[in-house]
C-alpha cells in the first residue's frame, strides 16, 4: 500500500538513529522509492544483512518497489 515519502523517511530514520537516510521518489505514485541509508550500524555486515535491516524497518508496509542502497559509515 502506498506510503508518503516523509512518513517513509521518518520510519527508516527511526531504525537508524545515527545514520543518514535519503529517499528518492521514483515514480510519483508513493509506491516506488529508492532508499539510500548510510549508518555506522552497517559496519561489518554483509550487503544482504544491511538490506535486511532496512527491509525490517518497513515491515508491514507493502511498498511495491523499494530499491535499497546501503553504506557503512
Amino acid at each position, binding site marked *: 500500500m502506498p506510503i508518503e515519502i516523509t512518513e517513509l523517511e521518518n520510519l527508516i530514520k527511526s531504525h537508524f538513529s545515527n545514520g543518514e537516510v535519503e529517499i528518492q521518489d521514483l515514480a510519483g505514485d508513493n509506491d516506488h522509492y529508492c532508499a539510500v541509508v548510510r549508518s555506522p550500524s552497517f559496519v561489518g555486515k554483509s*550487503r544482504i544483512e544491511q*538490506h535486511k535491516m532496512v*527491509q525490517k524497518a518497513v515491515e508491514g508496509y507493502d511498498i511495491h518497489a523499494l530499491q535499497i542502497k546501503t553504506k557503512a559509515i
Partner: protein
Amino acid sequence: MSENPIFVQIKKEIDDNEIVLFMKGTKDFPQCGFSSVVANILGNMGVEYKDINVLADNDIREGIKIFSDWPTIPQLYVKGEFIGGCDIIKEMSQEGELQELFAEKGISSAA
C-alpha cells in the same frame, strides 16, 4: 515434522545448479524490470545459469521468499548460497565483486 516439499524442491534446484536465478519471466523473456536487470548482467558475463520463473508456480514464488528470508524477486543463488536481489547484484557487478565471486567459486564466464 516433515520437510515442506517446496523447500525440498528449492534446495534441489540450488544444489543441482551452480547458478540459479529465481525471476519473474524467463531469461529470454523477463517479465519484470528488476528481473530483467539481473538476467542481463548474467547474460553479459556469459555465465551459464538456470532460470526459474516464479510466475509459473505460485508455491515457488511464495516458498522462495520464506526459504531465503527475503521478500522480493529476483533472487540469485550461487553454489547454493543466496547472494542477493537486483540492488545487490547491480552494485556487486558495478564494483567488480560479482566477477570476483564467480572466479572465487570456480565458475567460468566469457568475460
